[in-house]
């Protein structure tokens, strides 16, 4: 009896539809966990990189020097990406126009684009996590409903409706729900945690962009005053 009611035995004896549902849920759970681990590592690394870049940025180093540290073809991430996009735009616009407003507008646009790309990069696959979190309970529920239907069909064929005739069916059906929840709960928790993390990072990027924008603005203001004078 114990052996017949053990989880592997129940899974093996389940009907095909329920087995497919279980397989789908298992795959979803594995993929969601891959995403969770990958995102967690990536977030931690992005946080560390941002801290390092801010320290370096505010250490009083010359911006031109900072910009030239990295070859322009190399792709950068995070706040550095925003800084490079803004500074490149600033350097390109400076010889062409004398209007500081036009330069600042161009720099701001360019930084917004960079920020938007960063956002996309940080939130990559988080949608998948959200999908698993919201859909897998329903998929598990479908397996359960299907299994219960099977149990009632078998009940209609049995002469004696004892608990032992329906118990394996119901247990097997409930396993599908359990697996759905098993996939959904970590997905929900980590989706919330990771999206909060990415939101916090994006906020920091935005702050940095504003600060950089104000620095550029200050420089332009000084230059226009000098040019005007």
């Amino acid at each position, binding site marked *: 009896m114990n052996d017949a*009611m*053990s*989880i592997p035995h129940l899974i093996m004896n389940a009907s095909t539809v329920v087995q497919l549902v279980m397989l789908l849920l298992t795959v979803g759970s594995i993929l969601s*966990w*891959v995403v969770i*681990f990958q995102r967690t*590592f990536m977030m931690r690394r992005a946080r560390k990189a941002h801290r*390092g870049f801010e320290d370096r940025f505010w250490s009083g180093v010359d911006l031109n020097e900072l910009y030239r540290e990295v070859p322009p073809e190399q792709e950068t991430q*995070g706040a550095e990406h925003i800084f490079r996009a803004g500074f490149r735009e600033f350097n390109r616009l400076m010889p062409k126009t004398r209007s500081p407003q036009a330069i600042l507008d161009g720099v701001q646009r360019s930084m917004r684009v960079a920020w938007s790309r960063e956002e996309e990069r940080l939130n990559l696959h988080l949608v998948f996590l959200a999908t698993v979190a919201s859909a897998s309970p329903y998929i598990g529920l479908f397996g359960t409903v299907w299994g219960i239907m099977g149990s009632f069909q078998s009940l209609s064929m049995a002469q004696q409706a004892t*608990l032992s005739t329906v118990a394996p069916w119901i247990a097997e059906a409930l396993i599908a729900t359990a697996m759905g929840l098993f996939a959904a709960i970590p997905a929900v928790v980590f989706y919330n945690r990771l999206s909060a993390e990415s939101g916090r990072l994006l906020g920091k990027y935005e702050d940095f962009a504003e600060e950089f924008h104000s620095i550029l603005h200050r420089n332009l203001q000084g230059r226009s005053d000098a040019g005007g004078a």
Partner: protein
Amino acid sequence: MARRQARVGYGIPTLLAVGLHVLVLLLSVISLPTREHEPSPSSIVQATLVSTETVTDQAQRAEEARQRALARQAAEEAAAQEEQRRAAEEAATQEAQRQSDQAAEEQAREAARQAAEAEAARRAEEAEAETRRLEEQRDAEEEAQREREAEEQRRREEEAARQQEAEEQARREREAEEQRQREAEEQARREREAEEQRRREEQARREREAEEQRQREAEEQARREREAEEQRQREAEEQARREREAEEQRRREEEAARQREAEEQARLAREQAEAEMQRLIEGADERVANAQQGQQAANDFIALVRRAVEQAWRIPPNVSSGATAEISVRLGPSGELFVAEISRSSGDSAFDRSAVQAVEAAAPFAELRQLPAGVQRDYRQFNLRFRPGDVR
């Protein structure tokens, strides 16, 4: 700095995720059996089968049967040996009967009877009632046979005496005949002499010839008569001999038939005894095998009964957790409930009543019919102990 590994690969996360799932699977496989054991006592809380009074009893009975069969086998062997000895004695007795006279035969029979009686007495001590009955029956038959044989012997002797008498008679008759013949011859001779004298005296040779003729005729007559007599005698002897032979034949046949019959009977008795012994041994074996096989089926049955009763049991409120009631249940041959009565009350009448009602509600235990036929009878009566657990 951050630039060294700008991109986080998917290899390590994949490995980690798969490893996590395998771990969860292993945990579920390993820990589940132990977790399943724990709830089982609390779920069986309500009713426990106390005694089926059969499982142990059955084993005991099988043991007894085996011992009985062994004892009987020993007894049978002893009986067979005795029988052989008795057969030898019987043969000896018959030999003596045939050879010696009545007294010797009587003596031998007496000795045989004494020996047989001694044997029977010894046997009565060790053999079972059945075998004793068989032996006694056989004894009685033997006695009857012996009596019959004695009668036969007497009859045979009488027959012989009668035959002798007849022979004597025939001999006497023959002698008388011869006497008569001799007298007749004497007479004839005398007559002839007289005739001759007369012839010599008065007549010539013709008369003598006639006389001679007559004499010849007479002689012829006498000879014919003698021959006829001899023929008759021979026939009589032949007849007597045939009768004797027929008698002998009949006696021998009877003897043989009787002997055959006795042997047949003894053989039948032996076979019957052996068959019975075999049956007993087989029965014991079968019962031992049944006890094991039946126990398995019975365990299922007990579990079914217990579960059915558990499901039907509505525990009344406010029952102390230590209350225990025993219900003795008796089932019909197809599993219907005959009697459910309280064999040991818990002191709480509501609790007792609820237990009886549970048994009545669960009542037709149709699974009884699925038990092996030999075991069914044993599981028609059992006790159920009701004890409320902490779980309702």
